């Protein structure tokens, strides 16, 4: 089985090269039979990659430690569940996994379009097979072959790093990779549009769902990663501006910009070059993220060993994509002219454009900070790095402007907003935002950034609630429906628009939760059993935690030192928490498990930071239980996960397949309707006129 997987990997390369050659020749010479053959090779490559993946999984399940990759990431004792995740636990497997997902999505795209949109398909197929072929070259020739054998057979493997043995960590990489690879489809359609010259909005319409699918997985992948860092890394935070974290954020930022800018092209025929550039840039950043995570180019908390061959191949590929992309855009420049231009800064176009520029600015700042050590080394010969303070200083103001635009963008009028449009839409939200600001000031809150975040959040929330209210009320009145039915119909009739609003609600929730970090409380205390510590939450109540003692045990896999804490909130019992140190026998590594008591208001987070005498404690010596703890009260953290869930639900609503909108007619209608046209979707709101 494993040998078959290895064979399949070797066959996949020539098949994909053959397929891409046929695809491009077939497209150029208009020969449908060649294109069909190329499309079939996509399915074949997908099948071969399934075999390769099964081969790797089989090697893990059968403890085949003669393979370097298995020996490095598994051990006999590892739970079966984690052996499956061996496919993406390390660099080599995850490159196969990347290719597998790409082949899956490519097959779906080819199958979906087997009878329609044939004019795009030759080059779509060709581009996708080119990307696949690139990954096969990497896997086979860049010293990262997952089937590389060791000169001997070790008795046992190194075991999976204990910090990777966490539910969220098994979810995080695959989710992120689904997001990365799904974006290859819009990229392939964009390239095909450039090559064939079909540069109307067709390629955008065809790939809009793919963009949302990609964005859905990217968002979830990032949130899962934050959740993992929060639960497993044990320092109480969820984001460290680590190069690898930044790498996953970069394509998210540009994909978000792209999602919004295509609406401008669909509605106003503008930003065509911009959209082409964004799709290429985002695709490059997905490759860059894979590369950065898996090459160890930049010092990082979790990057991998350095390998110059892979760095060279990746950089050559990215350079090639960039070069070809720019050439194609320049070649097609005459066909990418704007049909309109911006008439006023107070218009939806302008606010969407500002949103785009800001997202790109944020992406540039993050990229700059991430690559700063490399840049300075190139110029001055020494590495100068910037840490979290840099990223926070740059991205906090950017994020707040972006948050405000989340409210403004969807309701400000197209072309040029009238005074009436502005007052009608923004008077109440501004008043409520200021009210929140004043309210918190009176309550004694003095954290500047948090205050602004709360105020802007209130402003945006009001706008969205009012939009929902207006829509529901109008529908209830016109259709004579009850409010619950009216709001359901409202959302289901224009899912893109209202799903988008729900996403925005989630974004507001997440930003508010971020602001909670300004109020974090931290206490460090060394304690003997029976001693207590008192912590005052920013909400004013008090936690009393009593260290009850340490229990030590040895299992087959590890030593465990578990500290028990009882919690009292304002003097009343509020349960218990445990936090522990582990020592894994297979790789002699230590790990900390934190205790978290999560409520909607705040998390109480306890870390067993250090034991005075681990050996004594292991011998159950009652005098060796002295331990140092770190206690954190993290307000609002839970809302990051809830907000992420709301974003996911909104995205699913927006991308759920349904009857296609009658596009051409409504677009004209939308343009004709001027300021009254819809935010996201091409279908105008029939109720708009009545609402005012």
């Amino acid at each position, binding site marked *: 089985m494993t040998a078959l997987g290895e064979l399949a990997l070797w066959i996949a390369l020539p098949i994909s090269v053959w397929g891409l050659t046929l695809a491009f020749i077939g497209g150029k010479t208009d020969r449908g039979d060649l294109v069909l053959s190329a499309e079939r090779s996509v399915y074949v490559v997908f099948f071969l990659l399934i075999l390769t993946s099964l081969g790797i999984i089989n090697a893990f399940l059968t403890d085949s430690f003669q393979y*370097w990759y298995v*020996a*490095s*990431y598994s051990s006999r004792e590892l739970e079966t569940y984690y052996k499956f995740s061996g496919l993406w636990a*390390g*660099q080599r497997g995850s490159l196969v996994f990347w290719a597998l997902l790409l082949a899956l999505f490519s097959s779906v795209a080819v199958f979906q379009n087997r009878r329609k949109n044939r004019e795009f398909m030759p080059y779509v197929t060709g581009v996708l097979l080119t990307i696949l072929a690139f990954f096969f070259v990497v896997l086979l020739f860049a010293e990262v072959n997952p089937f590389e054998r*060791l000169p*001997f057979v*070790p*008795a046992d*493997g*190194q075991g999976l*790093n204990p*910090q*990777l043995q966490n539910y969220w960590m098994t979810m995080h990489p695959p989710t992120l990779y689904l997001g990365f690879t799904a974006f290859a489809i819009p990229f392939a359609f964009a390239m095909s549009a450039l090559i064939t010259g079909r540069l109307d909005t067709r390629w955008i319409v065809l790939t809009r769902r793919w963009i949302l699918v990609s964005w859905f997985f990217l968002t979830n992948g990032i949130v899962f990663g934050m959740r993992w860092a929060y639960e497993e890394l*044990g320092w109480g935070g969820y984001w460290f501006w680590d190069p690898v974290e930044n790498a996953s954020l970069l394509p998210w930022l540009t994909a978000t910009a792209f999602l919004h800018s295509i609406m401008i092209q669909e509605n106003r025929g503008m930003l065509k070059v911009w959209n082409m550039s964004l799709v290429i840039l985002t695709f490059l950043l997905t490759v860059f993220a894979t590369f950065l995570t898996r090459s*160890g180019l930049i*010092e*990082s*908390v*979790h990057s*991998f*060993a350095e390998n110059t061959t892979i760095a060279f191949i990746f950089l050559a590929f990215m350079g090639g994509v960039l070069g070809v992309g720019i050439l194609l855009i320049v070649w097609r420049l005459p066909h990418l002219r*704007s049909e309109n*231009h*911006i008439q*006023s*800064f107070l218009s939806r176009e302008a606010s969407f*454009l*500002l949103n785009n*520029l*800001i997202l790109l*600015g*944020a992406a*540039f*700042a993050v990229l*700059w*900070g991430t690559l*700063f*050590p490399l840049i300075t080394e190139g110029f001055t010969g*020494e*590495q*100068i*790095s*910037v*840490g979290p*303070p*840099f990223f926070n*200083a*740059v991205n906090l103001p*950017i994020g707040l402007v972006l948050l405000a635009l989340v409210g403004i963008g969807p309701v400000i009028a197209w072309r040029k907003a009238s005074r009436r449009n502005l007052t009608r839409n923004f008077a109440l939200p501004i008043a409520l935002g200021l009210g929140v600001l004043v309210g918190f000031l009176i309550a004694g809150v003095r954290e500047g950034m948090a205050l602004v975040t709360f105020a802007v959040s209130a402003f945006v929330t009001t706008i969205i609630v009012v939009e929902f209210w207006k829509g529901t009320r109008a529908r209830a009145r016109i259709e004579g429906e009850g409010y619950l039915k009216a709001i359901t119909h409202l959302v289901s009739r224009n899912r893109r628009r209202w799903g988008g609003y729900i996403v925005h609600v989630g974004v507001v929730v997440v930003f508010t939760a971020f602001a909670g970090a300004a109020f974090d409380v931290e206490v*460090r205390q060394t304690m003997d059993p029976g001693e207590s510590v008192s912590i005052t939450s920013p909400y004013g109540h008090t936690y009393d935690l009593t260290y009850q003692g340490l229990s030590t045990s040895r299992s087959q896999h590890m030593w465990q030192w578990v500290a028990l804490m009882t919690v009292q909130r304002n003097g009343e019992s509020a349960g218990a928490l445990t936090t522990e*140190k582990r020592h894994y026998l297979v*790789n002699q*590594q*230590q*790990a*900390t498990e934190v205790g978290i008591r999560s409520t909607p208001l705040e998390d109480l987070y306890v870390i067993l930071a*250090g034991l005075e005498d681990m050996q004594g404690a292991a011998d159950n010596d009652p005098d060796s239980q002295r331990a140092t703890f*770190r206690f954190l009260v993290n307000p609002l953290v839970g809302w990051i996960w809830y907000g992420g869930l709301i974003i996911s639900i909104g995205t699913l609503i927006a991308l759920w397949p349904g009857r296609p909108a009658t596009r051409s007619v409504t677009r004209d209608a939308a343009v004709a309707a001027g300021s009254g046209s819809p935010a996201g979707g091409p279908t105008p709101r029939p109720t708009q006129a009545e609402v005012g």
Partner: protein
Amino acid sequence: MKKNSRFYIGLVGVALVVTYLIWTGVSDAMVYYLTPQELLARVSTDPSLHEVGLKVSGRVVPGSYQPAREDEPHRFVVSDLENSEVTFPVVYEDLLPDTFTDEVEVVLEGRYGPDGVFEAVTVLTKCGSRYEATPEELST
């Protein structure tokens, strides 16, 4: 060109703001990233290096680690990765990461005092060893 002038004004405006944020952010947050060898060589000619934040990567000298006690900080000695002759002592108040051992590769952030002791604010263990084990070690 003219009809798109608003677009370009916006573009330049945002670019300027972002550049300003990056510029101030970098100058406030930048730290030199040096090897112990570079650090000792540079500090002998340029004492102002004692005043700025530094990031230094090296290896903990086996046997040099003294755990923190009561009011005493953690103490250990770090050597250059390539030249183990080059060393300097480190003190560190906070909690060490789980993966810290007596011989691990570390990245320190902090200040190199005029007394020749590095006062670390953060200690990161390098993850080459954390996530990528070497099975070659298993053969022994």
